[in-house]
Structure formats: C-alpha cells, structure tokens
C-alpha cells in the first residue's frame, strides 16, 4: 500500500502539468495546448518536402529533384491519393459530409450521387437527336459538381464588429477556401431541406447539384440571400478599415 501511494504521488507530481490533457470532456481547444511546439503530428514534417502524388509526376521527375535527397512527407490516404480518378474537390465534399468518421458510407453516398447524375444526363445524351444538342449536355458529374460549387460560392460575407457599444454586421470579402466551404455547405443544407423526405439522399443531392450547375434552385437562392444581406449592410462596410 505504501508503495502504491508513493507511486501515485510520484505520478501525480510528474503529470500535473498535463493532467488537463487527459480529461476526456475537454475539446481540443480547451486543453490550453493549442499552438504549442510539437503539439501536432505534422510539426515534425517542417523540413520535409511534399510527396509525389501521381504516376505522371513520378515518371517525369527530374534527376535533381529535391525529393531524392530530402525527407518527404507521408501521403495521407484520406486526402491524397495516387489514383488517377482522385479529385481534391470531391474529397473536400466527402470531408464536409463526414459524420463520426464513417468515410465509407459517405464515399458510397458520393458514388451513388454521381451515378444518379450520370444516369439522368446520359439518358438525355443518348436520346438527343443532333450532335449540337449532345454537345450542350454536360455528363461528367465532377464537372457538374465543380460548376455547382462555382455558382454557389458567395463573394462576400458578414462579420460582426463592435463599435461604440453596438455590434454591426459588416460585409467583408470571402476568402476562396471559405467560399468553397460555404458553397458545399449550402449545397448540403439545401439537400437536407429538399422534399420529398422519403427520397434517398443521393437522389436529392444529385438534383441540387444539377440545379446549381445551371444557376437555379434553392442553393443559388441561399447564396443570393447572403449577397442581399451584404448589400443591406453596405453602409457599415468602411468599419472594416476605420477602427
């Protein structure tokens, strides 16, 4: 008993500084460990160079390429891939749809969405009479998705700035990363709103994507509402640079 209590005291003294890290109820931000040195796994890759991510790149690699003689970062299978079908924007959508780490499910959802889009578009394509009609039909689901995201990206957003004791909604430009995120978020949200509710997710998502690619539908309306709000608050725009 003496020994165990001694051990416990010793341990508690040792890990006193880090005891809050073991508390499971804390989120990552509450651990007071944010931004500390070597707090993330990628900190040790500071001096490493980016990996090769395609076969073409590998074959065309220069003899004097720095990857020959410098340490290389690892490939992260969930984000990066050696596959020729890999598309970063699709993996971004998958990452935003992801819930509880069930990536297989979300990948299947995306596959089914793309298949639905293709079934519709290629049905139109095969039934089209002339080549002119055919050339107008975009069948590639990834291109449609990119077009939809491009159409649904808002260019401004509102932020809140306190001035003279009151909060003002101030329109500021949207950064591209955040813009892409917002567009995908809008697409997903409008899919969740879509009716009928007994339809499968991939059916509704496919419809939303195809609508947004043509600059129509609920997603585009949501984007326009964001713009309208920004326009309403344009009087406060100068608060961004006048403090």
């Amino acid at each position, binding site marked *: 008993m003496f020994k165990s209590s001694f051990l416990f005291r010793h341990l508690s003294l040792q890990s006193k500084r880090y005891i809050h890290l073991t508390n499971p109820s804390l989120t990552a931000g509450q651990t007071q460990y944010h931004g500390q040195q070597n707090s993330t796994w*990628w900190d040790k*890759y500071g001096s490493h160079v*980016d*990996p090769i*991510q*395609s*076969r*073409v*790149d590998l074959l065309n690699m220069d003899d004097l390429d720095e990857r020959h003689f410098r340490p290389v*970062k690892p490939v*992260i299978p969930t*984000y*990066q891939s050696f*596959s*020729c*079908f*890999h598309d*970063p924007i699709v993996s971004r959508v998958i990452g935003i749809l992801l819930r509880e780490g069930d990536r*297989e499910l979300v990948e299947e959802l*995306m*596959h*089914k*969405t*793309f*298949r639905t889009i*293709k*079934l*519709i578009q*290629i*049905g139109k*394509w*095969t*039934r089209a009479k002339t080549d002119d009609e055919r050339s107008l039909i975009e*069948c*590639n*689901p*990834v291109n449609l998705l990119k077009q939809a995201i491009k159409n649904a990206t808002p*260019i*401004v957003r509102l932020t809140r700035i306190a001035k003279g004791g009151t909060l003002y909604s101030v*329109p*500021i*430009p*949207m*950064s*591209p*990363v955040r*813009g892409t995120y917002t567009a995908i978020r809008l697409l997903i949200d409008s899919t969740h709103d879509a009716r009928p509710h007994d339809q499968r997710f991939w059916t509704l998502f496919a419809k939303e994507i195809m609508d947004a690619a043509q600059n129509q539908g609920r997603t585009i309306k949501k984007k326009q509402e964001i*713009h309208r709000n*920004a*326009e309403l608050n*344009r009087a406060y*725009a100068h608060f961004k640079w006048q403090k």
Partner: protein
Amino acid sequence: MTLITSCLIRARVAAYRSFNRFYANSVTRTIDVHSVPQDLFESKAEQPFRTSTNDPLLHTEKDLGLFYTVNPEDLKRISPFGKSLPLQFREECEAFNETCVMIRQPSIDIIKLMKQIDWNLPPLKVVLFPSELGVGMSLSLFHVLHYGLRKKMLLVNTPTAAEVLKLALDATPSPNNELMWDTPTAASSWLKTFAINNEELLKETNFRTKFTYTWSARESTPAGTHLLDLIGYATERIKYASECVGAIVKEVKTQVKEKNIQTLVTFDTINSYYGPTWIVKPDKSTVKPNEVTMVKALQELLLPDWNNAFIVVTIGPKGVIIPKVREKRNWLVRHGHYRTEHRLPGVLMYDEAMTVKSLLRTEGIEALEPFVPIQVQKYTDDEFNNQYRYYIDRNWIQNHRGRDEEGRKEILFYTAKNPYEMAKFVGSR
C-alpha cells in the same frame, strides 16, 4: 464601383496567394498534374465488341464475350415486371436506351446442352453457381430465357424465387388447407408473368385444362377451360391465385408431352426453397418453404415424373434467407475476419463458401439431383476489355482519365474483373 465588384476583385487577388496549410498546399499540386485532358481511348476496329447476330438461336462459341442487343419487345415479354434483370443493370439500360447482354460461357454451355438433349428423359437440371458475389448469373439465365423464347418453348419462369418467402406481410393462411400458407400477390404476379411469357404459344396450341378445379363450394373451373382464362380468373379472384399456380403446374406437367411443347423451367436463387423463411406463424414458429402453397407447387416441377422439359436454376447468396426470428445467433458476425472487418458486429450476412454444398445443403442437393453444376466465373481478359469498351462506347465512363490506358489498368486493379464490382466502380466515374 459597387461593393460586390470590389469584393470580387479582392477575392481574385486572394486566390493567387499560396496557403501554407499542409493539405491545401499539396492538393493544389495534384490539380496541376492532370490539367491537360488526353485523347480518347481508341477502340480497335478489327475486334468488334458487339455481335452481328442479335438472335440467340444463332449464337455460337465464336460470339463469346461479345454483346448482343435484346429486342425491346422480347425484353418486355420475358420480364414484363422487370424482375428477370437486376435493378442496377436495368437502370443503366434505361440510360443507354438499349439492352445489351454479354454472351458468356455458362449460357452458351446451357444452350448447347439444350440442343442435344433427349427430350423423352426426365428433365435435366442445370445448376448455375457463382464463383463469388456478382458474377452475372441472372444475366446468363436471361440469355437462356431469351433463347427459349425465340425457340418458342414454354417458359415457366420464376425470376426472384426468394421474394415470396421474404414478404411476410403478404402471407395468409390458406382457405382450403390449414397447414398451408398462401401468398396471393406474389402468386398473381407469377401467373401474369407466365401468361405474358407464353401468350402466343398458349393461343396457338389451344392449351386447355384437363382437370376440374374446385376453389370453394360455389366456385370451380371446369375441365376444358383455356389456360389464359384460368389465369385471368385467378388474377381477378386473387384469393385463389396460389392454388392456381398449382393448377398451372399440374396442367403443364401432364400436357406438355402430348402437345409436344418443349418446356424451359427456370428458377433464380432456388436455394431459398431449402432454407427457412421470414413468414412466421401465430405461435412464433417459422413457416417452412414447402408449407407455402405456391412454393410447394413449383417444387413439383423439379420431380423426375415428367418429360419434354429442361430446368435451369441458379443458386446464390441472394437466395440465402437468414432467419429473422430464430437461429439469429448462428448468423451473427462475432469476430471480424480481416476482410470483413468493416462489417459491424451483429450484422446478419451470408459469410460462407459459395459452392453447391454450402448453398443448397444436403436436402437441396437431394431435391435437385441429378443436376449439371456449372460455375459462373468472373470476366476473362477479353470479356473485361469488351465490357470496358462498351462502357466507353455508351459514354458511361465520363472521367477522361478513365478512357486512357492508365485508367483502364486502375479499373482492372480495383475491380479484379468482377462484373458487379466493375459496374459499381465505373458507375461513379
């Protein structure tokens, strides 16, 4: 300059900034690599992937691995309710605006057997079994059915045999026999299928009943009624549909010999007839398949007491009915195999070998004996290439990388020449 345009310009300027985030940095590199689309895959002109003959009567071993187009009228007659083909395949056919089926070894073998069989013997049974999941048994069976239709055989087709035993809400106790269970909806759809399959043939041969059938004290069908009339009656009085299936089977078995009609009996996933069902009695015991009126009637087709017939059945994991009420414990996946680790513990799944003994068990084999087992394999190299070229021809592979050699190799690698896996993989590319 309005606010929005100024913001637009600022956003464009911001887009050229490089971001020091780990992912974003590496991701932009991948985009640059494939930015130039390459030329389309050129199909070799000297090796066509479609046959010139769309008539299954003329198909020989030279046509192996090639596609033939199914006449839309024939398709409607063979599977009026679309059950003879898998759903995914039908969806794709809808998009392609045509139904193309690959000619494969098992169906050619079966047709070869049908050509040389002695029709005076008891019916020969051919059992198609898969080498793994999704190798295209139903499509092989469809090809055989098409052959039968073209040869003007009497088609007795049960496209999804397991379905009857799974629709538990559909089952009602039989009015005439307390021990039996009726499945009116399934039976009436079976009757309709039978009628549409053989409408012309039945009219030509003037197929009339030989026996009198008494449905109840008031209702009966006298001998000499046309079979189509009998079916019409049963589909209206849906209560007697299941027993009408028995009547049809009886008539077919007795009259096929004297009328000299060659009969093709097909069952898809027949192994469900030798296992448990999902139909539950009020005392919580499970109904056996031969306690279902329709199934019992159809099982009589497999007996050797008639001739002028040829039986083709498939067995597969789709037909394995995993008991819902009892013995659930036996089917639980407790400790995941490394290949099945993605399955959740407690999920019901068929996880055994896909060979005859494990799918049919002793009883099933005894019921089907003697049979010719034919294994349906995965695609060969030629078949894979033809399928790939067909997809490109139909514009189904949209990703331009999928059309060059690298993409072809990757599809080959991912799917391992499994037809279903290939359809799934290519479906979203």
